[in-house]
């Protein structure tokens, strides 16, 4: 018995927590990327995640959700959201990059409501879900518990995204430019790089990742368009704990938050969400810039 539960119970919750962390990372990686490069507090990021989920639900009908077509649905949903992201960035967010934080919050939060309204008018307010492709069906027995197989898929997908983003940022020329934009976008612009297009590209990648995450989680079912708000709040908690703009920080913080959330169910089942915010407050008290953030933003 370890603090109110058996060791096997802890093992099961830790594995499940890693599954939750994986989804959190998929959402927050795009958010931290766009914040790092564009310095915009994008509250609509959760809505892009929600949009990916609903696109996947619609694409499932004509394409199917078999072992093969499932991948096509994921990619197309991600690309659809990336396209929506480009529209948002070019027409609505670009003009507010240099505006005060409050303006950014208001504009991006407006899109939370606008996108929720659009989704409600197209898909209705009810929850939706896709079926689980055969290769992800059933559960994996661990320590006496059974973890749905798709949770391991979430973990694998998030590791693949983390590695892919790392290689992109640190092993490609465009990645170097993105990192330079994070450090000093004006200097990068003076060196002849088209920062506008670069920013649009970064925003599209962030939106793609949010859409991909949304499409993936339809396997476990959605409660409705309101998932956008909860998702963006948790994603912000992750990137603040990890350090704004830090990909490694988002990865580590996702694990921290995912585990805190799921282990919190053992300790205080009535207030699991509060545990997450306790972690946030403690981390910020010790390192105000977040675990991997730099002191000067």
């Amino acid at each position, binding site marked *: 018995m370890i603090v109110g539960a058996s060791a096997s119970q802890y093992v099961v919750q830790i594995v499940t927590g890693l599954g939750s962390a994986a989804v959190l990372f998929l959402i927050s990686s795009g958010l931290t990327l766009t914040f790092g490069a564009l310095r915009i507090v994008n509250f609509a990021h959760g809505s892009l995640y929600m949009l990916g989920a609903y696109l996947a639900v619609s694409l499932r009908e004509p394409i199917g959700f078999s072992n093969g077509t499932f991948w096509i649905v994921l990619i197309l949903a991600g690309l659809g959201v990336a396209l929506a992201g480009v529209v948002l960035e070019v027409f609505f967010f670009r003009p507010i990059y240099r505006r005060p934080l409050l303006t950014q919050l208001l504009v991006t939060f407006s899109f939370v409501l606008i996108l929720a309204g659009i989704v409600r008018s197209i898909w209705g307010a009810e929850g939706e879900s896709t079926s689980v492709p055969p290769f992800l069906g059933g559960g994996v027995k661990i320590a006496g518990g059974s973890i749905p197989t798709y949770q391991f898929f979430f973990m694998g997908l998030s590791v693949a995204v983390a590695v892919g983003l790392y290689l992109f940022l640190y092993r490609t020329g465009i990645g170097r430019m993105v990192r330079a934009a994070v450090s000093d976008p004006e200097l990068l612009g003076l060196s002849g790089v088209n920062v506008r297009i670069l920013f649009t590209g970064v925003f599209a990648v962030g939106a793609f990742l949010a859409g991909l995450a949304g499409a993936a989680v339809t396997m476990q079912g959605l409660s409705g368009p309101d998932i956008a708000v909860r998702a963006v709040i948790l994603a912000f908690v992750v990137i603040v704990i990890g350090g704004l703009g830090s990909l490694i920080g988002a990865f580590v913080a996702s694990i921290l938050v995912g585990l805190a959330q799921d282990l919190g169910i053992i300790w205080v*089942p009535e207030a699991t969400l509060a545990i997450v915010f306790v972690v946030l407050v403690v981390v910020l008290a010790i390192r105000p810039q977040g675990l991997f953030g730099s002191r000067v933003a």
Partner: protein
Amino acid sequence: MNIFAAEDLAAVIGRAIAPDAVNAAKAYVDTLNQSGGMGGCNVVLDVVEETFGDVPACLRAYRDAIQSKKYDVFFGPTNSACMFALPELTTAAGYPVLSGIAADHQPYLENFGKGGKYAFHPSVSTFMEGRAAARFAAENGWKKVGIVAPNYAYGQDAAKSFREYFLKLVPDGEIVTEQFPEFDEDNFTPFINQIAESEPDGVFSAYFGPFIVPFWKQWKAAGLEQIPTIGGLIVLATFEVAQTSPGDIPANSYGYDRAPWQLLEQTPVGQIQTEAARAANPDSAPIVSSFAYQMLNAISMTKAFVEQTGAADPEAWKALVEQGQFAFDGAYQFAPTPVNPLTHMGDNCAAVGLVGSDDTLPVPVTYDPSTFLMSCMDDVLTQEEAAQLVDRDASEITQEALDAYQANVDAARTAREGKWNGTPATPPS
């Protein structure tokens, strides 16, 4: 006779809840007006958007309606938290309020002093659903029970009602785990892990309608189908997800419901209400939203009040109810529905049944009617317990009134004897 209600017309929690219920109510009012209205008065039912989830906005809508002095009667909203706060507002302004879609009786009883005077309950409540589920669990021999409920007013009230009544019925029973995920939670697996660890005989899950789908999917994926679960309000016409993946529903899934149409279409008044609701919502027919019956019952109760007192005077309505003889033509009974003089609650019923599939229905997920266990208020709440729960001096109600009410209850019980369980009018296909 002008009636006001604010409902979730935007269908935030599903089309089958407020929109279908309001459609049915308006159609029922039209039918009523064609046959003379209420006591000779034409009835107008105005329904506005309540902005579901925004309780202050919901209360503001009612406050504006009260200030307009245009309305005689108020029907409750869709959101339970708004309904809980509403009687204080309407009673202070001197208007009667009847519960409609939302009805959480236990907090209402415990706060009767705050506006309960002019509040009347023609609809079935979370309290009744919890008790009906507890009775089902007890009759099926459950001893160790897990609870998982959304962490907001509805979920907490349903869990409280289930827990208290189950432990009363099964004194050696045990609630082995209680989990309260956030309302919009999609990832139930960590909560399911905790439930599985506690090895319950069954699980009461206060998730309802579309919100239960993620829970079901993850429950099945966790390989826990052998453990029976009772979820909420399974048959909602908007339950579209069930059309695309009915295979996601685990075996041994039961549902509690405040008005399963397969049962209500059998009572004389229920039959009329069912036809009105089907005509108003032809896309869903033969399915009728459980919430349509709640609003239709509110109209029926209002009609009885107006016709028996000749006015829309809440003081006269209160006096009538508290004399113990008041009963109205409701959908839940085969005789007039008695209204408890102490609590102002109608003797309505909730059911629990096994979830099954019927491809002939517009939404193929339904109950197996042969498995229904219907529990009425008089089955699960004694007068002594009601007196303990309600926040008022029980001696305000005379023994004559209580006797008159009991006579009505006895008549209702006699009339429904052998009518429901196992004798569905619409056999499963």
